[in-house]
C-alpha cells in the first residue's frame, strides 16, 4: 500500500526482505507473560488521584455534583473569555456565563481565548493522569491545548487505580479511531539543568474539578 508518488515500491520490498533475511535463523520470542499488576490495591482512589494531580502543581478541588458550576466559576475567575466544546453538560457552567462555542475557530482565534472547560474520559490515580478521548464534552484536541487555562472536570466514576486499568477502559476509544490526550499536570519542561519548570507551550494552568457521588 505504498504511496507510488513518493518513492519506489521497491523500498518497501527491500526493507521487508532485509527483515525476513535477518529473521531467517532467529529464535522466535513468545508474547509477554504479563506478570505485572493490573488494578493496584489503592485504598482511596479519589484521594490518591487528587494528591498525585496536585503533585504536578495543578489545582484540584473536590466537589459534589451540585457544586461543579461554582467550582468552575472560581476556576475561570479573571479569564476574559472561555471556550467550551459541544456536549459539555450545561449544569457544569455557571448560570449566565458568556461562553464561546467551538465553531471551528482557527488557531489564532483560539489563541485569543483565555480558558477552556472540558470533561474527561478516564483519570488514573497512581500517576495523577487525566485522559481525554475528545468525544462529546471534550472537544477537538486544539481546544484543550491553545488556551492558557484548562479547567477539566473529572468524575470519580471515571477514576481507575493504575495505567493498565486505564488502558483497558481506553481500548474502545482507540479502536474507534479517536485520538487520546494523556494529561499529567500543566505543561512543563526539565530541559534546563534537569529541573522541572511548569508552563511552556500547553496550558500553563491546569485546574481539575473532581466530582464525587
Amino acid at each position, binding site marked *: *500500500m*505504498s*504511496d507510488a508518488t513518493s*518513492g519506489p515500491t521497491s*523500498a*518497501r520490498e527491500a*526493507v*521487508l526482505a532485509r*527483515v*525476513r*533475511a*535477518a*529473521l531467517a535463523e*532467529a*529464535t*522466535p*520470542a513468545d*508474547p*509477554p507473560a*504479563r*506478570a*505485572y499488576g493490573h488494578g493496584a490495591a489503592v485504598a482511596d482512589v479519589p484521594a490518591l488521584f487528587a494528591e498525585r494531580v496536585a*503533585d*504536578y502543581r495543578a489545582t484540584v478541588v473536590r466537589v459534589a455534583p451540585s457544586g461543579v458550576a461554582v467550582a468552575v466559576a472560581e476556576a475561570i475567575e479573571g479569564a476574559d473569555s472561555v471556550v467550551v466544546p459541544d456536549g459539555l453538560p450545561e449544569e457544569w457552567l455557571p448560570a449566565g456565563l458568556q461562553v464561546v462555542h467551538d465553531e471551528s475557530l482557527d488557531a*489564532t482565534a483560539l*489563541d485569543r481565548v483565555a480558558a477552556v472547560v472540558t470533561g474527561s474520559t478516564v483519570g488514573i490515580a*497512581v*500517576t*495523577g*493522569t487525566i485522559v481525554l478521548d*475528545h468525544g462529546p464534552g471534550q472537544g*477537538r*484536541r*486544539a481546544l484543550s*491545548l*491553545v488556551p492558557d487555562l484548562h479547567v477539566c472536570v473529572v468524575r470519580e466514576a471515571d477514576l481507575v487505580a493504575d495505567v493498565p486499568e486505564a*488502558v*483497558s477502559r*481506553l481500548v474502545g476509544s*482507540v*479502536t474507534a*479511531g*479517536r*485520538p*487520546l*490526550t*494523556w494529561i499529567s499536570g*500543566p*505543561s512543563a*519542561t*526539565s*530541559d*534546563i*539543568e*534537569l529541573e*522541572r*519548570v511548569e*508552563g*511552556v*507551550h500547553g496550558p500553563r494552568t491546569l485546574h481539575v474539578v473532581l466530582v464525587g457521588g
Partner: protein
Amino acid sequence: MSATFVGMPAFPTAAREALGNAQQRRNLRHATHTIRDKRARVVAEVDDWEELRVAGAAIKDHVLTHLDTYLEQLEESLTRAGATVHWASDAAEANRIVVDLVRATGSQEVVKVKSMATQEIELNEALEAAGIDAWETDLAELIVQLGHDRPSHILVPAIHRNRAEIREIFLREMGAVGEPAPAGLTSEPRELAEAARTHLREKFLRAKVAISGANFAVAETGTLVVVESEGNGRMCLTLPETLISVVGIEKVLPTVADLEVMLQLLPRSSTGERMNPYTSMWTGVTPGDGPQDVHVVLLDNGRTSALADDLDRQALRCIRCSACLNVCPVYERVGGHAYGSVYPGPIGAVLNPLIRGTSSAVDKSLPYASSLCGACFDACPVRIQIPDLLVRLRTRVVDEKRGGLPSGEEIAMKGMAWVLGDADRLERAQKGSELGGRLLRRRTSLGRLPGPLSAWTDARDAPTPPEETFRTWWKRERG
C-alpha cells in the same frame, strides 16, 4: 555515517578534550545526578517494576522476531485509518520522501517535534538544502539549534549547557529567526521557558506542516504515540494541516495493551516522573480534528543489521529513555559529543556500531568507551544487557582487524594467552616478577614509567611486584 559526524576522532581523543571543559563537567554532573535521584525515587514507588521490565523486554523481543508481520499489519492499519505509508531503506531515501512531501504542500517551513529518528537522518540539513526552514520546538532542541550546537543527550540535547549559557544564546540568536527574547531576560528557568513560549507561539499558529517521530506505533490499530512534556508536541501534532512522522521500524508494538507497560516504564525512566505531562495518540486522520493529510515514513537505516543476532537484537528494544546515559560514569564526565552520534552514552556505544558498522575510527572505539560497570543495565527499563553487547562488539572489532600486521595490543594479548595457557609457563613468567620484586624491595610503589606503562603511571603510582608469588608460597608451605 552521516555528514555531521564524518571524521570524528576516536572516543579517547574526543573524551580528553571534553574532560578539560570544566563548565561542561560541572553542568553534566549536576544534571545527571539530579535526574538520577529523581528516577530512583519514582522507580522505587513501583512494586512490580521488575515484572514491568521483564514484560517490556518480552514485548519488544516478540515484535522484533516477528517484525515483518507487524510492519505489514501496521501499514494496513494506518492505510485503513487514512494515513499514507512510505518506506525508507536509508537516511537519504527518508529525507527525499519528506522533502518531496513538504514541497508538495507549497510550504517553506515546518515545525518539528523532538525526534531522534529525524536527527539520526539529519533531516533538518536536508530540508535546509531544499530551502525549507525547520523549526525545532522542544526547548532543548531549540537551545541546540539556536546555539549552532550539536545534541549531547537523547532526552535533554542541551544538557551540557547551563542556565546562564542558555540565556546568552536566547538573547543573541532569537531575534534573527523570529520573536526576539525580552531585553530584561534573566537566567531563571521559568523566564527562559517563557521566552521560548513567546518565540515559538507565532510559528505554531502559522505552521502548515509538522514533522514528528513516534515513541510507539501500534500495529493492530495504526495508532502512533508521542510522549512529551512541554506541549510543543501537541501543538505540532494538532494545529498544522499536514503531519509527517518518521518512525524507526523497531518502534512497532503489537497491541494497544502493550502501551500499559511502556507508558509505565518510559516516563519514570526518562524524566523521573510518574507520568510525563502530555502523551498524544492518533490513528491516521481524525475528521474535523487535527491534520487531515497524514504521512508515516517507516525507516530502516541500518536497524536490520542488528536484527539477525539473537543477542545483538536486544539493542533494538531501546525506547530512547536515556536512563543509561544518566547513570553512566563515563557519560557523566565526558558528555555526549565524544560519541560522535545523536545516540550517545552506553546505548549509543552499542547502537552506533551495530547500525552504522565498525569501519570508522569513532565506531571502532565506542565499544571500549565503558568501564563495564553495569549501572546501565540496572537502569534500563527493557533490560538491554549493554555490558555484554559491548564486550561482543569488542570481539567484532578485534576479529575484523585480524590477519594484517598485528598491533602491539594483539601481540601482548596473544603473548598473555600463551603464558596463561599453561601453569608451567605462568610459573616461569612469575619467576621474572619475583626477581623484579627482590630488586625493588626497598620501594613501596613506582612513579612515572616509560612507554605503554605511562598510560597507567601518568596519574597513578604502580605497585611493585612481591618477592614471592602465592604459588611459590603454597608450594613451599603446603606442597
